């Protein structure tokens, strides 16, 4: 169609990108074959790949256990990462200790890479806390539920790194970067677009890591964008890359390069990890209402764990005993997680008054005292409501 406004979208961006399109960076095929890419290579050894395999299996096991706990009423809700394990392990393992991650509420695999006790992830979903880890010490921010808000936090933290002079010194133990996670739906948020602009004009050392899992609850990617997401980056003034999000080797290589670029002071990068949300948005969702099971079957063939296993097997690096041992370790982890979840104490209502402010207020203390006195009034003698105070 001639519009008089220049070439059409198809001419600019090419044909529809089934399967990720020609720009998809891949280093390990769904069949488990290592392939070369002109710009990116995976240069860790096979032991590292075995380590990734373990990470992937453990992460999926945490996820399935959490889903089961929700189904049994032990969690209020759970946001599954099923299908996105490679995107998270590959990017999480690309981080250095001094790097900082700003997650959504689905980055259980990144949390695993940051060494956070998986039990801490359950607190939010069980309703006993709002994130039990130490965000500053673990360099892993609290889960952020307001879509896209954390990308600005990531950018601000990166601006702090700039001001602290820990960018571009050449010292690998000192130079740091930030990685901000978000999904395809978030790219429609103002905050994400503002984060792109800020990071661009200030050259902030941040990697924008978008897991395009094709779905924002029920809305397909077509409702968020008419162009491939990674190509948006150019309009903001920094590079965008699309990586096979189910290929842990490629995700690792691409994210490592992007983080290194940031640490060196060369500014932000947009990484679109092209993947698929194999489960529901959360346990409250019903994807059968809006998507085809055939799509799911298509993506099952691209499973992020199976391809690593295929590579390890065909290379003679692992056998059934190895896989069994990992599975057994994962089951132990899950059992511990379940036990820990059931033992998590409910918070004390009187504690909610304590953490609102660094310096509390007289009004808040007064409300606390009044409510404590009210509660105590039930201790004085028999009452008829069974002790409840609702």
């Amino acid at each position, binding site marked *: 169609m001639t519009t008089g406004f220049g070439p059409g979208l198809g001419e600019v961006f090419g044909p529809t990108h089934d399967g990720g399109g020609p720009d998809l960076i891949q280093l390990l095929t769904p069949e488990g074959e290592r392939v070369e890419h002109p710009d990116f290579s995976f240069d860790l050894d096979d032991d590292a790949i075995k380590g990734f395999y373990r990470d992937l299996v453990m992460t999926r096991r945490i996820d399935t256990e959490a889903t089961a706990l929700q189904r049994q009423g032990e969690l209020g809700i759970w946001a599954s990462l099923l299908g996105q394990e490679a995107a998270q392990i590959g990017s999480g393992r690309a981080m250095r200790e001094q790097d900082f991650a*700003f997650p959504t509420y689905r980055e259980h695999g990144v949390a695993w890479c940051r060494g956070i006790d998986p039990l801490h992830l359950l607190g939010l979903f069980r309703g006993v806390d709002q994130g039990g880890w130490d*965000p500053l010490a673990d360099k892993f921010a609290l889960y952020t539920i307001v879509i896209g808000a954390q990308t*600005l936090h990531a*950018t*601000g933290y990166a601006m702090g790194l700039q001001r602290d002079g820990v960018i571009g010194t050449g010292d690998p133990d000192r130079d740091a970067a930030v990685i901000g996670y978000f999904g395809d739906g978030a790219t429609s948020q103002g905050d994400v677009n503002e984060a792109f602009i800020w990071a661009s004009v200030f050259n902030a050392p941040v990697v924008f890591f978008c897991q395009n899992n094709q779905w924002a609850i029920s809305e397909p990617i077509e409702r968020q964008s008419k162009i491939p997401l990674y190509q948006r980056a150019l309009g903001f003034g920094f590079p965008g890359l699309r990586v096979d999000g189910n290929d842990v080797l490629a995700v690792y290589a691409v994210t490592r390069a992007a983080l290194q670029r940031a640490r060196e002071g060369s500014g932000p990068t947009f990484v679109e990890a092209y993947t698929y949300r194999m489960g529901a948005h959360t346990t409250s969702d019903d994807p059968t209402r809006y998507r085809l099971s055939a799509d799911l079957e298509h993506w099952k063939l691209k499973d992020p764990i199976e391809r690593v296993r295929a590579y390890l097997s065909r290379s003679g690096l692992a056998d059934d005993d190895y896989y069994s041992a990992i599975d057994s370790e994962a089951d132990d982890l899950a059992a511990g997680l379940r036990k820990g979840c059931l033992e998590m104490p409910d918070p004390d209502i009187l504690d909610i008054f304590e953490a*609102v402010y660094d*310096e509390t207020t007289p009004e808040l203390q007064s409300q606390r005292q009044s409510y404590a006195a009210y509660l105590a009034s039930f201790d004085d003698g028999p009452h008829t409501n069974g002790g409840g105070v609702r």
Partner: protein
Amino acid sequence: MTAITLAKGVTMGLRAAMDADPKVIIMGEDVGKLGGVFRVTDGLQKDFGEDRVIDTPLSESGILGTAVGLAMRGYRPVCEIQFDGFVYPAYDQIVSQVAKLHFRSRGKITMPIVIRIPFGGGIGAVEHHSESPEAYFAHTAGLKVVACSNPVDAYWMIQQAIAADDPIVFFEPKRRYWEKAELDEHSAPDPLFSSRVVQAGTDVTVLAYGPMVKTAVQAAMAAAEDGLSLEVIDLRTLSPLDMGPVHESARKTGRVVVVHEAPLTLGLGSEIAARVTEECFYSLEAPVLRVGGFDTPYPPSRIEEEYLPDLDRVLDAVDRSLAY
């Protein structure tokens, strides 16, 4: 002692805070070379550099969202929102992020962020430049809200707000920016979260903050000519409220009038009326009366002087209180 304007008081306070702590940074639109549209940050970028006085993109959510990240990295951002009516794009970051992170992290994260907002009307501006949004923030757990009314408070309160580890919305009465007062930089300031009796009296208590303090004092002077003694209290802190001096005054006069520019319904006056009633019920001779803007959007500026509470409307409320 030198006479300074309220705007200059904020400028001097910002400068002192930046001198005292290298982690203090200023962020906002046009705060650099221009010195802000009200010139409050005049000269600061020149002296402290572009890394500490940051001309930001025109993106209020971006200002507050990046301030969160900078605060997590140990900085103390002072964010300027250019006008009251422009704060709403940042509302989510302020209410859902800045206000809640201390609570959500159980105190592991502090948010020492100051959000400066020139507020209120009376300068003949176009729409969105004359609003009084303080109740939105005072209603939000995790935020603190203060309003300065004079140059001396402006100088001290901005420094105290920056030094505090909680997020504080700092309202500056834009139509009083050019009011002058003598500043003694060696005097000891009142605590930040304290209200203050600015004029003692015995018949009726008039509560005000920000731009309305001057109006209340003018009303008291006019009333004095009629032999009426008004006690005027500058609330200064809107969240938390410092009700001690208010209750004391209410018990003495038995009559309380609250004045603000913001619309009446669910404004600060409503909360104050409730608290005074709860604490001073048997001392009251009249219900707590409120004088405020109407429950309308801010009007076109040619009629804003009618919309805004003035001396006569304050005195009308005083008369109504005395009529009980």
